[in-house]
């Protein structure tokens, strides 16, 4: 029983030691004899350490570099490469600057920053930072880290479309009457060139066309879209949830646009009045269904 108590105390001490090491280890720098690059860190422009960035944001990269033999073969240069989520080299051997701050004996903090672009210049996903250091003796070391660029996407409606779709005055028994607004390429949905992913655009209505001041509805509202020309005939009936089977646009690149139109059929005997509803367009990253 006594032995067990001793073992218990021993295990507890070992456990506490492990926990303590796990906390303090990153802060303990073991100075090596040759240039040694420690894992780079990323900060926002206020020097808060972060690893996720939005388009257009400044990425501050810092790396601790040590050289225990600095008096004989001092550090020569510290470089940085940044590779985007698509594997394209965005920064090539950009020299990092000694901040003048130290990270221990013979250890210095180097820094460089990179401002993310927008659109295809800053594709969403995981980016890689590679930091290289060499000394005057020809010794070198490298280390790398990653950061994430958030998905950014946006769509906009053409001015006529944003102003509302008008069908005008229609008679009962009118079959597939095209909207007045969307004739002659009037209705476009454009993908912002700032978007950094290709997008799918889907559509829905909040409800069928419903008579103002009443409950009568018109269910027979249809839409169609085209990348190249004015849609000439209705293809799909509006639904009240986003239709991922029939998309307004698929895999649309940033800066592209899609042409939209809508039609309505007025059944015979439809009660007179003004009918309205709201059409929703939603863009999400191609292949997802986040709307």
């Amino acid at each position, binding site marked *: 029983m006594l032995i067990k108590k001793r073992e218990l105390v021993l295990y507890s001490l070992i456990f506490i030691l492990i926990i303590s090491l796990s906390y303090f280890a990153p802060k303990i720098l073991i100075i090596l004899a040759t240039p040694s690059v420690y894992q780079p860190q990323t900060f926002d422009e206020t020097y808060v350490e972060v690893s996720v960035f939005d388009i257009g944001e400044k990425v501050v990269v810092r790396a601790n570099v040590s050289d225990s033999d600095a008096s004989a073969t001092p550090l020569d240069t510290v470089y940085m490469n940044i590779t985007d989520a698509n594997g394209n080299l965005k920064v090539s051997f950009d020299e990092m600057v000694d901040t003048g701050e130290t990270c221990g004996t013979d250890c210095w903090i180097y820094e460089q920053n990179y401002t993310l672009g927008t659109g295809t210049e800053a594709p969403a996903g995981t980016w890689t930072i590679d930091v290289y250091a060499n000394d005057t003796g020809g010794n070198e070391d490298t280390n790398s880290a990653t950061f994430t660029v958030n998905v950014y996407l946006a769509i906009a409606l053409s001015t006529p479309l944003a102003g509302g779709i008008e069908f005008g005055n229609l008679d*009962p028994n009118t079959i597939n009457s095209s909207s007045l607004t969307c004739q002659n390429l009037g209705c476009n949905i454009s993908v912002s060139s700032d978007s950094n992913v290709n997008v799918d655009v889907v559509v829905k209505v909040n409800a069928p066309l419903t008579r103002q001041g009443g409950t009568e509805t018109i269910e027979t509202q249809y839409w169609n879209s085209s990348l190249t020309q004015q849609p000439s005939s209705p293809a799909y009936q509006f639904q009240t949830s986003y239709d991922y089977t029939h998309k307004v646009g698929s895999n649309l690149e940033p800066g592209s646009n899609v042409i939209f139109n809508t039609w309505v059929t007025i059944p015979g005997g439809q*009660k007179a009045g003004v009918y309205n509803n709201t059409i929703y*367009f939603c863009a999400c990253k191609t292949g997802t269904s986040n709307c």
Partner: protein
Amino acid sequence: MRKWLILLILLLIIGVKTVSSQKSEVTTPSNATVIAYDITIWINGVETLTFENASQPYNVTVKVFNADTLQPIKNAKVEFNERSGASIFTAPQSSTTSTGRGVVYTDSNGFASLTIIPTGYAAPSDYNLSVVVYNNESGTEMLRKYMNLANTGAVEASFPISVPNRVEVANTLTRVLSVWSYSNEWVSNNEGRRYSVNVSNSGILEVESDYLNVSLPVTFEVYAYKEGAQEGVKVFLEEKNGNLIFVAPQSGAISYGIGNATTDSSGWANFTIIPTGYGASDYNVTLTIYDQNGNYLNETWFAVDTSTLTDYFSTGETIKNQVDVANTLTKVLTVWSYANQWLGYE
């Protein structure tokens, strides 16, 4: 503890930010204004859809208006239809529907008036009256209502009537009697002409003759084919501004006599018509063919000498549905006599 709480909040913020940038949603309203028509009909000044007696001329006024705003609708096309009435042009007969039709257009205040004489004397069971309103620009049917004839018996004139276009209606009745007397002799002798009509579903239309004589009965023997007999092909024969009792051609109103037949399982449709356009103006007779789905196939017009009634002579060609046609002519004469009496009562 506080450190973990701050971390948790930061993670939540990052999480929300990440999700919110995964989609972009925009909206726009869509609006459609439905114009529905409504009508009010006055018969002899009383708002009603019911005619009292067969053979009596009635002053009919219709107002067409927007059912939502109640604003009058001008230039609306209004059809008054009488099915299986007493019509010389197309007697109700086997497999053939007979329709008399009067068409008027509303004025700037949404009104139109005309004289209507229901001819449903001793009418068959499928007799009915209807009014149909169209948007004249789009051709869309906007409204259809059925009207009624309370008494299918005829009532002698007992009070003076005031009807629109009285002189024109009376003149038409005079010509009706002339046409009747000539055509009745043809029908009584069960003779006339037979025209064969061949029609293919691809629209080829061959008619034996393109000439018709006023008061001379013609039996059209229509055969529809396309790789064999075609059932369900629709044959539509229309006489415009003939001498029709139901709606006589009159100022502001166009008159139509219409026969509508459908080919049977052997591809045939046989029916007899009698052109009535004696003394008529803006008169024509057209034959139009539609396929089983109602799609237009072809049409042809017939030349008719409207200045001459055709005396009976033996053609050696019997007419089909002679009994139906003869019975209708008998009704026409009865209706005519009562209607003429009412019109003469001033």
